[in-house]
């Protein structure tokens, strides 16, 4: 339940007094933007964001009733174009105009990373929060692999990435912009060149670091007018060195350990790479009921010492009803690795409860980490409504930290599986045993027994007589 705290915090942040007070936002307003980040490896990351807001008649009630709060997770789903089509339908301009023309399924799903999201939430319309607007935010991030698709070349253009170019803004959008991250290359124009040259640049503190972006505003007629379409190009003047990307201050790993099909251990490693600042992390874990957690084995160690969480909420599982819910507030010391581990026992399911491929294993949902991560550079207080969308995704609570929510990888746990042909085998075996017993009984009871006169011969007898004769003993 405490996981909602950052969420409501996030909502409150966006409400800041005076933001909505002066100007009534237009009904059904749409903002869209595309952020292109050239990575040092030569790959390119592209993030689309679309935000729609509309007014609703709904009245905001005082407080939140936590008994209505639900958390659900589908640990794994195979992503394909079928996920994109309904997602695209939610966009007001569909895929006909604006940035959404670039959303072409056959390119987006041939990337090395794909992440797609829909966020919907109520936001207050004024400081008193008497009326509510709904906000639908759709994000799509992809990372294009430079070497595989670029045939060794690392230059990029919109056309090469999406096989489309931008021709017109969505007429419904109040803002339609493309940002290109030129932070590392802006000092010297020797490394990277962006074409056409940007008209404006934008500087801000994003995720704790200072960033510079080249901005292309599609609503600005000058951007498209020159050649009737905008085909952004990135040209590397000097091939990018294979420098390691900077490590984030907070990241996590998760794995299952143990052997056999009876017991196991879930471990989560939390990394704080900040050289001198410790910060708290909220860890939310839901584990399916068929992994029976032993809560007394919960251990949290950082730097070889036990780390006592300042808050623990545990809700035990009920078979077939609800999963385990474990929520902890853990203080991560500076430049440390914290290991959270808990042992579990694998439960046996009913034989009809197994999935069609039970030997593949069962997925365990990722844990969720929520944290206020200290930033490197002090951020200026900004007007959230004016700043670009990608910035509001990680809002800074104050100048020294920003909010991050991380999801660890989902786990695959194999459960003991029964022999599914067992009922048939049991029936067969029982039948055979019964039949064998029955056969001997039947023989015993129905056969007639009579005394046979021994017959004359037999090979053994003749042989014996031969030997007897040789010995001079009378034959049998």
């Amino acid at each position, binding site marked *: 339940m405490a996981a909602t705290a950052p969420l409501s915090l996030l909502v409150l942040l966006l409400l800041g007094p005076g933001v909505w007070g002066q100007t009534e936002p237009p009904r059904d307003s749409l903002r869209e933007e595309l952020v292109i980040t050239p990575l040092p490896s030569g790959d390119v990351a592209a993030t689309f964001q679309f935000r729609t807001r509309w007014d609703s008649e709904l009245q905001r009630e005082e407080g939140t009733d936590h008994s209505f709060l639900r958390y659900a997770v589908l640990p794994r789903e195979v992503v394909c174009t079928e996920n994109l089509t309904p997602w695209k339908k939610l966009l007001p301009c569909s895929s006909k105009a604006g940035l959404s023309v670039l959303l072409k399924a056959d390119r987006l799903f041939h990337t090395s990373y794909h992440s797609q999201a829909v966020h919907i939430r109520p936001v207050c319309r004024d400081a008193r929060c008497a009326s509510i607007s709904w906000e639908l935010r759709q994000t799509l991030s992809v990372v294009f692999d430079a070497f595989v698709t670029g045939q060794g070349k690392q230059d990029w253009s919109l056309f090469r990435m999406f096989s489309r170019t931008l021709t017109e803004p969505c007429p419904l959008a109040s803002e339609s912009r493309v940002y290109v991250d030129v932070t590392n290359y802006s000092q010297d124009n020797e490394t990277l060149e962006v074409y056409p040259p940007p008209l404006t640049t934008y500087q801000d503190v994003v995720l704790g670091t200072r960033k510079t972006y080249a901005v292309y505003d599609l609503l600005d007629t000058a951007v498209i007018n020159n050649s009737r379409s905008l085909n952004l190009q990135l040209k590397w003047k000097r091939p990018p060195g294979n420098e390691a990307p900077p490590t984030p201050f907070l990241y996590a790993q998760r794995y299952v350990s143990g052997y056999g099909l009876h017991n196991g251990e879930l471990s989560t490693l939390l990394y704080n790479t900040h050289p001198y600042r410790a910060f708290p992390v909220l860890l939310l874990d839901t584990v399916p009921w068929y992994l029976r957690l032993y809560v007394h084995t919960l251990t949290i160690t950082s730097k070889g010492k036990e780390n006592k969480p300042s808050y623990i909420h545990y809700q035990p599982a009920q078979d077939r009803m609800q999963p385990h819910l474990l929520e902890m507030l853990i203080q991560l010391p500076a430049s440390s690795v914290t290991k959270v581990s808990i042992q579990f026992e694998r439960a046996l399911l009913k034989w009809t409860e197994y999935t069609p491929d039970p030997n593949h294993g069962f997925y365990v949902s990722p844990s969720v980490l929520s944290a206020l991560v200290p930033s490197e550079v002090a951020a200026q207080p900004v007007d959230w409504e004016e700043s670009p969308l990608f910035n509001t995704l990680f809002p800074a609570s104050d100048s020294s930290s920003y909010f991050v929510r991380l999801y660890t990888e989902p786990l695959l746990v194999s459960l003991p599986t029964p022999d599914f042909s067992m009922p048939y085998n049991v029936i067969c075996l029982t039948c055979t045993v019964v039949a064998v017993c*029955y056969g001997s009984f039947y023989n015993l009871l129905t056969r007639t027994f009579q005394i046979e006169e021994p017959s004359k011969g037999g090979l053994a007898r003749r042989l014996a007589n031969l030997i007897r004769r040789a010995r001079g003993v009378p034959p049998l």
Partner: protein
Amino acid sequence: MAAPGAAATDLEVVRGKRAALFFAAVVIVLGLPLWWKTTETYRAPLPYSQISGLNSLQLRLMVPVTVVFTQESVPLDDQEKLPFTVVHEREIPLKYKLKIKCRFQKAYRRALDHEEEALSLGSIQEAETMFAEPSEQAEGSLTVYVISEHSSLLPQDMMSYIGPKRMAVVRGIMHREAFNIIGRRVIQVAQAMSLTEDVLAAALADHLPEDKWSSDKRRPLKSSLGRVTRLCHGKGEGNELCGDSGAGGESACKRFTPFFCGFIFFLKHSVFLIPLLSSLCVHDGNQPHFRGEPSSTQPGVQAAFDPQMPLASLTPVFIGYEITFSLLNPDPKSHDVHWDIEGAVRRYVQPFLNALRAVGNFSVDSQILYYAVLGVNPRFDPASSSYYLAAHSLPHVINPVESRLGSSAASLYPVLNFLLYVPELAHSPLYIQDKDGAPVATNAFHSPRWGGIMVYNVDPKAYNGSELPVRVKVDMVRVMEVFLAQLRLLFGIAQPQLPPKCLFSGPKSEGIMSWELDRLLWARSVENLATATTTLTSLAQLLGKISNIVIKDDVASEVYRAVAAVQKAAEELASGHLASAFVASQEAVTSSERAFFDPSLLHLLYFPDDQKFAIYIPLFLPMAVPILLSLFKIFLETRKSWKKPEKID
């Protein structure tokens, strides 16, 4: 030594024989039934005989009609005979096993004082308002007032009047056979207001097997094109057309339109529709939008009828509907379209749905879709410098839009779509042409069970001087007029066949008259009963045919409940309680459907009998072989020992 040995052996042989016989007996008497019992699938008993009885169910629909005679309506000596009751029974000729008999039970009585007073007023409207307050009649019942031959209540050339409530007025006669003549007139009016063959036939057409059913009513539902075209020409107002023509039409239709292979119907600005909304406007004090034809300047009363509206538009039986209004704006660069759908729904649609509350649950939603285009490129007509959609291309219009609508994903109920299409600047103005090439006056068409589409052209004057996008404010009265009329047709509220010289009042603010609702309830009840009966019969057939389907107790209880509800509904119909009959018939449908679609019926379908036997082969084979062999041996020996004595003789 030989003799006692032989005796002992004989004894042994006899004992062995007995043992073998005993084994066989135990296996047959005890073992086999035990095995059968323990491995059998559970089948709860079902009322098979009752279900087969339902199949030849005879429905009696009773319509209670109260006939009230005012003074001077009939000769005095006839008035002395009042009150008494006359029953008029008639079998509705349906070519199904289901027999429907229609009984009009006419209770004749003299008018009470206040009725007398009301009917002596100057105009029918005033009389109606006087009646309106006290009399809240039961569903399905009717009251017919017989007034004097020379009363000025009705215009002189009119013989009868049908009001919006369950009330009618008939002119009396001074004649020796007055009761007979008036009785006939009353029946005519009562039939128009309650049950007619075509309504019942259309309701049943989709649910009962088509044995010898005359093709007339049936055909428009199935894709038989020649028939429909013939029907169109016979129509005055409800002009209907299919999207394709000729014999190959059906296949072509199927090929190109995988989801939608339906019929397109046009709706003209009928004189009937205008008062519908005009009375709405008057009611809400919202007159400025009212724009009627000259004939409808007197809101409320109209005397023109269409003998037959498309019956094919009936939507099938469901517990609820979702009604979705979508505004399609394919060209947001040129048009900035605004519509006040919330207000329009509140003002026009909601009263109608409230009146229809008895029929099912309704949920209404709306959406605006941009860049949603029709699937057909409109043709340019140089003569009028406008674009048009030809009638034969209309079936292809819906599919591409359908994929964008997406409302069926969000609702369990079937969806009725109403689309308002504002054509793009390059294709406007856009008109829909009917089969003959003439533009359809409403610029709209509808398709049974799917919904309706209306094309809304932007006023060309709006483009002058202003730069794009042009702000367009949709005139919701014009739109809702069409959508509401389409909605009426989609629910199968057909216009009645009225007797000649009959004055007819338009519906009040609800957009539906009480007796129209009754007609709908009659039709729906019969339809529900037919559906439930068919479902139960096919379920019984299926269960009889496939012997290893498990029938759980709850499935059986649903079947019993459905059968009881069918019987109850039939009884209630026979005693004239329409409301409770409808409720019972709905329960019958839901129970029977729930039984039919119960997932537990499928559980053991993939474990057939031959596999069951195969599994038990290791038991059966070793047991059966010795038993059978010894039985065979015993049989041979017995036969031999029987034959021996014969030889001795």
